[in-house]
């Protein structure tokens, strides 16, 4: 169904533009209907309020530099391709692979780190990156997630993303 098709059904479409007040009224009624029939769910509003705890001016943000979902060409016939993500904060690169089995990561240049897998404002599961910068988790992230890394006296957090 396209807009163009609708035009043929509705001769009102071409009429003169002196109906602005009526349009405003319909918009207001619709706004009222949305507030009743499709409001922001209360628990989501609450989560957004609690998200204030995630603001941390001291942490460095590792920004998303590559997301296979957006940046990679789909492989023909391939199913269950892992999601490959690369985050960057200055010289530090965080490579992450998300599969149904879990999460596999690599810090470059290699370094040890304590890593927290966040899924919201609450504390998350803890992981450790070994001396070669490798880390794994057998719990695949679902929904929003971020990694908080403590390494060499600084804190780096990957950009929030939906797994």
């Amino acid at each position, binding site marked *: *169904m*396209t*807009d163009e*098709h*609708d035009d043929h059904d*509705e001769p*009102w*479409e071409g*009429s003169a*533009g002196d*109906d*602005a007040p*009526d*349009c405003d009224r*319909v*918009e207001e*009624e*619709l*706004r*009222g*209907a*949305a*507030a*009743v*029939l*499709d*409001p*922001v*769910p*209360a*628990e*989501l*509003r609450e*989560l*957004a*309020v609690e*998200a*204030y*705890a*995630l*603001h*941390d*001016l001291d942490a460095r*943000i590792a920004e998303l530099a590559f*997301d296979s*979902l*957006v940046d990679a060409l*789909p492989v023909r016939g391939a*199913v269950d391709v892992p999601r490959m993500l690369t985050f960057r904060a200055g010289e530090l690169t965080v490579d992450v692979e998300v599969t149904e089995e879990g999460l596999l990561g690599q810090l470059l240049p290699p370094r040890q780190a304590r890593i927290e897998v966040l899924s*919201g*404002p609450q504390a998350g599961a803890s992981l450790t990156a070994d001396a070669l910068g490798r880390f794994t988790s057998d719990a695949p992230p679902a*929904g*929003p997630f*971020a990694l908080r890394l403590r390494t060499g006296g600084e804190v780096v*957090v990957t*950009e*929030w*993303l*939906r797994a």
Partner: protein
Amino acid sequence: MDRADVGALVQSAVDGDGAAWKALVEGLSPLVWSVVRAHRLSDADAHEVYQTVWFRFAQHLGRIQEPQKAGSWLATTARHESLKVIKSLRRLTLTDDPQLLDRVSEDGTPEQSLLDAEEAAAESERVRRLWQEFEELGDRCRQLLRVLIASPPPSYQEVSAALGIAVGSIGPLRQRCLRRLRARLDKRGAL
């Protein structure tokens, strides 16, 4: 929300004022929700995108270049994340997983029961019919109007960021879509 207010609230939130953050959520979460809904995501996906957007906003607080445009920042992020979901669904063709759909929110329920009270039955029916006609509009109109009817109403800059359309085209398109909706309602004698 007024841009000057948004800018000031963002600054206060950066400085540690939790009430300012709460005011930002009150004022701008309906916009984020509208953008997500305009992209017709399932309830489960809509919830996750909404959360991701707010978590990222909190994370970037204090680093946002133009605090007075935080509404547009949120709208753009919501749009990008919504489009990513649509892309991943297309790739996996895992659309409408029934188990995911079972997780739908029950938030409509209290309002619903209010509406269903006997004295409000007629009004309820009218609102329902209006919503139904709106849902059946063409995709472009439904999408534009869903964002426009956020409460408080978004600015055209925010609508532009939410949908990736030029600011100048919003007014004429809005008029056209509302006129179309009115025509549908007239036809049904619903307004």
